C-alpha cells in the first residue's frame, strides 16, 4: 500500500539565480549561478550528488535536447542525469524526479535544477511554436497565445457567475497590484516596482480582458534544490529540516477539451490535484492550515480562479477574498509573497523550483523583508498548457515532523 511522499525527503539546500532579462548570461551560466548558492547552502561537495534531473521547457530557444547541458555546465562526475519537460510544471517535475529517487532509496542525494533562457528569441512573449507544436496539432489548433488561452477563463467565469466586466477587471488588478508590492521587496525578482491599480487598469490590452499588467514577466533564470533523506540531513548537521509533504500531478485527458460538461471557468486538474496533495500532506482544512502559497499566476485570471480550485476560496468566492486582501502579504493566506510569476518572473523550467525556494526561505526564516510570521506549510502550484488541456503540479513542504 502506497504511503505517499510525506516526510520521506528533506531539502538539503536550495539556490536561485536572479530572474530577469539576463542579457549577460546564457542558460549554462544561469545554471551555475543557482547551483553555487544551492551547493553552499547544502554544505556538501558536488561529488556527493548521485543523480540529477534537469527541467527545461522551450528546447528550441533554450538548452536543446538531452540532459547533457546540466553535467556539462556544472562539471558533474558522470552521474545519471535526466532531462524532463512538462509545460509549466517542468521545474516541479525535475524536483519530483529527484525526490522519488531519494524516497525509493536508489540514491542518497539528488539534484533537481530548472532553467529557461527565454530572452534570446528577439520578441516579447513566449516563443511561437508554428509547426513545431506537432504536425497534427499545427493543422487544427488556432494560432493561440498564452494570454489568449488563459484570457478565456475570464469570459466563462463572468458568464457563469454573472459578474460584470468592471468588477472582474478590478479584482484582477488587485491580484497584480499585490504581486508588484511583494516583488518590490525581492532583490532577485525580475520586476521590482510597485504600480497602482489605476496603472494596471489602464494598461494596453494583450488578450481581452487581460492587459499588459495582467501578464507575468517572460524571464531568464534558474533554480535548484538538493534533496536527501531527513536522516542524512540530520547526520550532515542540519537543525531545521524542511521536508516534502506532498508532490502531486494531474493531467487533462480530453474531458475539458472535448466533452460537453466543463464550463471553461476553472481548472479541473487543479481541483483534483489539490485534493490529492492535501490528503498526502495530512491537511484537512487548507484555508486554515496552509500558511502561504506560490501559485501559477501566469495571468491574473489564472491566479484568481486557482484560489477556488485549491479549495481556499469557495466557488464563485475568489473575487471577494481577493478584494478583502485575504491573499495579500498581510492577509489570511499570503500568496505570491516573492512576487510570483508576475514579478519574480517566469523562466518556465525554473519556476516550480523558484516557488519552492521562496517557501523554503520562509520556513527557515530567511526571507528578509518579506518574512512571514511562523509559517508551517507552504504550497506551490504550477499549471502548464491551456485551461482546456493542461498539466497541474502541486507541492507542499513544511518543517519536518509538522
Amino acid at each position, binding site marked *: 500500500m502506497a504511503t505517499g511522499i510525506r516526510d520521506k525527503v528533506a531539502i538539503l539546500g536550495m539556490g536561485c539565480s536572479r530572474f530577469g532579462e539576463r542579457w549577460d548570461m546564457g542558460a549554462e551560466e544561469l545554471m551555475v549561478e543557482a547551483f553555487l548558492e544551492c551547493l553552499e547552502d547544502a554544505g556538501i561537495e558536488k561529488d556527493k550528488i548521485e543523480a540529477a534531473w534537469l527541467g527545461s521547457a522551450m528546447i528550441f530557444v533554450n538548452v536543446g535536447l538531452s540532459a547533457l547541458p546540466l553535467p556539462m555546465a556544472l562539471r558533474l562526475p558522470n552521474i545519471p542525469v535526466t532531462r524532463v519537460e512538462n509545460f509549466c510544471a517542468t521545474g516541479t517535475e525535475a524536483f519530483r524526479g529527484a525526490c522519488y529517487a531519494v524516497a525509493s532509496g536508489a540514491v542518497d542525494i539528488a539534484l533537481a535544477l530548472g532553467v529557461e533562457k527565454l530572452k534570446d528569441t528577439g*520578441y516579447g512573449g513566449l516563443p*511561437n511554436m508554428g509547426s513545431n507544436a506537432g504536425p497534427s496539432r499545427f493543422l487544427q489548433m488556432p494560432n*493561440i497565445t498564452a*494570454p489568449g488561452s488563459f484570457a478565456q477563463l475570464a*469570459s466563462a467565469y463572468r*458568464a457563469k457567475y454573472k459578474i460584470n466586466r468592471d468588477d472582474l477587471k478590478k479584482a484582477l488588478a488587485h491580484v497584480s497590484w499585490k504581486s508588484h508590492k511583494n516583488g518590490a521587496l525581492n532583490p532577485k525578482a525580475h520586476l521590482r516596482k510597485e504600480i497602482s491599480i489605476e496603472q494596471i487598469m489602464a494598461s494596453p490590452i494583450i488578450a481581452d480582458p487581460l492587459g499588459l499588467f495582467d501578464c507575468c514577466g517572460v524571464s531568464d533564470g534558474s533554480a535548484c534544490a538538493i534533496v536527501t533523506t531527513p536522516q542524512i540531513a540530520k547526520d550532515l548537521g542540519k537543525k531545521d529540516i524542511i521536508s516534502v509533504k506532498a508532490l502531486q500531478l494531474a493531467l487533462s485527458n480530453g*474531458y475539458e477539451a472535448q466533452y460537453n460538461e466543463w464550463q471553461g471557468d476553472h481548472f479541473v486538474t487543479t481541483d483534483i490535484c489539490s485534493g490529492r496533495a492535501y490528503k498526502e500532506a495530512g491537511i484537512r482544512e487548507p484555508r486554515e492550515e496552509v500558511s502561504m502559497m506560490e501559485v501559477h499566476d501566469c495571468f491574473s485570471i489564472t491566479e484568481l480562479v486557482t484560489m477556488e480550485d485549491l479549495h481556499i476560496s469557495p466557488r464563485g468566492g475568489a473575487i471577494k477574498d481577493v478584494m478583502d486582501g485575504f491573499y495579500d502579504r498581510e492577509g489570511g493566506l499570503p500568496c505570491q509573497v516573492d512576487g510570483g510569476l508576475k514579478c519574480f518572473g517566469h523562466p518556465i523550467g525554473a519556476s516550480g523550483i523558484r516557488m519552492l525556494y521562496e517557501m523554503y526561505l520562509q520556513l527557515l526564516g530567511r526571507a528578509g523583508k518579506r518574512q512571514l510570521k511562523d509559517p508551517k506549510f507552504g504550497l506551490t502550484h504550477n499549471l502548464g498548457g491551456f485551461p482546456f488541456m493542461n498539466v497541474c503540479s502541486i507541492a507542499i513542504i513544511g518543517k519536518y515532523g509538522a
Partner: protein
Amino acid sequence: MAGIVSFGAYLPRLRLERMGIMQSMGWLAPGLITAAQGERSLCYWDEDALTIAVAASRDCLVGMDKSKIDAVFLASTSLPFADRSNAGMLAATLNLKEELSSADFTSTQKAGTTALVAALDTVRAGDKKQVLVTASDHRLTKSSWFYEMWFGDGAASLLLGKENVIAELLGSHAVTLDFVPHYRGSHEKYDYNWEERWIRDEGYMKIYPQAISGLLKKTGTNIKDVAKLCYPCFLGRAHGEIAKALGAAPQQVAGNMHAEAGECGTAHPLILLVRELEQAKPGDKIIVAGFGQGSDALLFQVTDRIKDLPKRSGVSGSLARRKPEKTYTKLLKFNELIETEMGIRAEVSNQTALSTLFRDRKLILGFVGGRCQKCGTPQIPSQRICVKPGCGAVDSQEDYEFADQPAKILTYTADMLAVSVDPPAFYGMVEFEKGGRMMMDFTDCDAKAVEVGVPVKITFRKKYFDRERGFTGYFWKAVPQA
C-alpha cells in the same frame, strides 16, 4: 430529362467601396474616378477561390443527398494549387464519397459555363447520376487599375442531374475562338489586358451574339420567349447592346451586378443564373452564357419543382450579408499585395507534413469527427478511445460531420499578441449543441457580436500560408452570428 437539381452561391461579406480605391490612388490614376461608383465584393484575408467555392457548394447542397454525387467539377482561374486537384479538395471539404470523378476547369474566363456544359453532357451520358459544378474566382490585379474596381470575388454552384430537376436543359451551343482580351502567363501573378474598345467591338459584340443566336437556332427558340438572358460583361453600355443586337428587350437582360459586387470571373455567369433562378417562375426560359476564348451558351426551362427546393442563402442572401468597407489598403493586405512588417513572431516554421495531412484529411478538410457507437457521444477530433467519462469504448467511433451542426461560444478572447492579418485574433471554445466541442479560430468577426452563448456557424477558411513552400493550409473556423 437533364438539368439543374439545386443551386447555391456565395459572395464574401466585405464590399469595398470603389470610391475608397479612388481616394487612395486617384492622385496617381485620376481616370479611376470614371469607375469609382458602387462597391465590389472582397475576399477576407482567409478566403480564396477554394474557400468561397466550398461556401457556395455547401449552399447548393442544402437539403440534397450527397451520396448521389458522382462527379465534382471546379471552375476557376485563381485556384490555390497548380498541381493538386482543387476539385478533389472541394470534394473532401464536402465529405463526399471517395468513389468520385473530379476535375478542375481553368485557363479561361468561360471555364464556368464550359464546366456546366461538360457536367450536363456527363449526366446525359447516363453513367453518373449527379454532378456538382462550382465556379469561383478571386482574381488579383495590379493596384490602381480599372480592373481592380470592375472585378469582384464570388462563387456559385449548381447540382446537375436527371431527377428532381428544377430547370431543364433545352440545349447548349459552344464557340471556341482564340480571342485574347487579356492573358496571364503560366507563372505570372497579373493579367495583361488589351484595349477595352477592341474587346467590346470585336469580342463581346460579336462572340456573344454568335453563341447565343447559335443556341436559339439549334433549339428553335424565339428570343422573345426567353425570360432572362444571363451573361457577364463589365463594360456597362456594351452589356445592354449585346441584347439589343440579339433582338431582346432591356428587361430581358439580367443585371451584371456591377454596382453591388463586380465581375466574379468564371463564376459570374453562374452567379447571374442563380440570381435569376431565385426569382424564376415555372416555365421561364433562361439563357446563360460565358465569355472567354469564345463562348458557351445554355438554355434552361424552369420546372414546377423549383417551388419545392429548400431555402438557401443564394445570391440574394449573400448580397444581404454585406459589410461595407472603405479602407482600400485592406484589399492590398488581404491579398498580400503590399509587404508589411509582421514582426519576428510571424517568422515561424509552418511546414505541412503531407503524410499527416492525408491521415487527418477527414478532420482537416471535411471537419469530420466521431460519434461513439456505444454511448452516442459526438467528439472532435475522433480518437480511438471514447472521451466520455465512464465509457472508454475502444475503436467505437463512426464518422460524424460537424460542419452543419448548431454550435455556440463557450469561451473566447480577442488576442492582440497572436500574429494576425486583421488583429485582434478572435478564437475560443466552440460547443456543438448535440455534443462535441473544439478550440477554434473565429472569422468574419465583429467584436460586438462575440459573447459567451452566441451561436456560431462553421466555415472553411485558409489557416496559414507557407510562403517558403507555396502551400496554403486550410481548416474550419467559427463565425459568430450577431
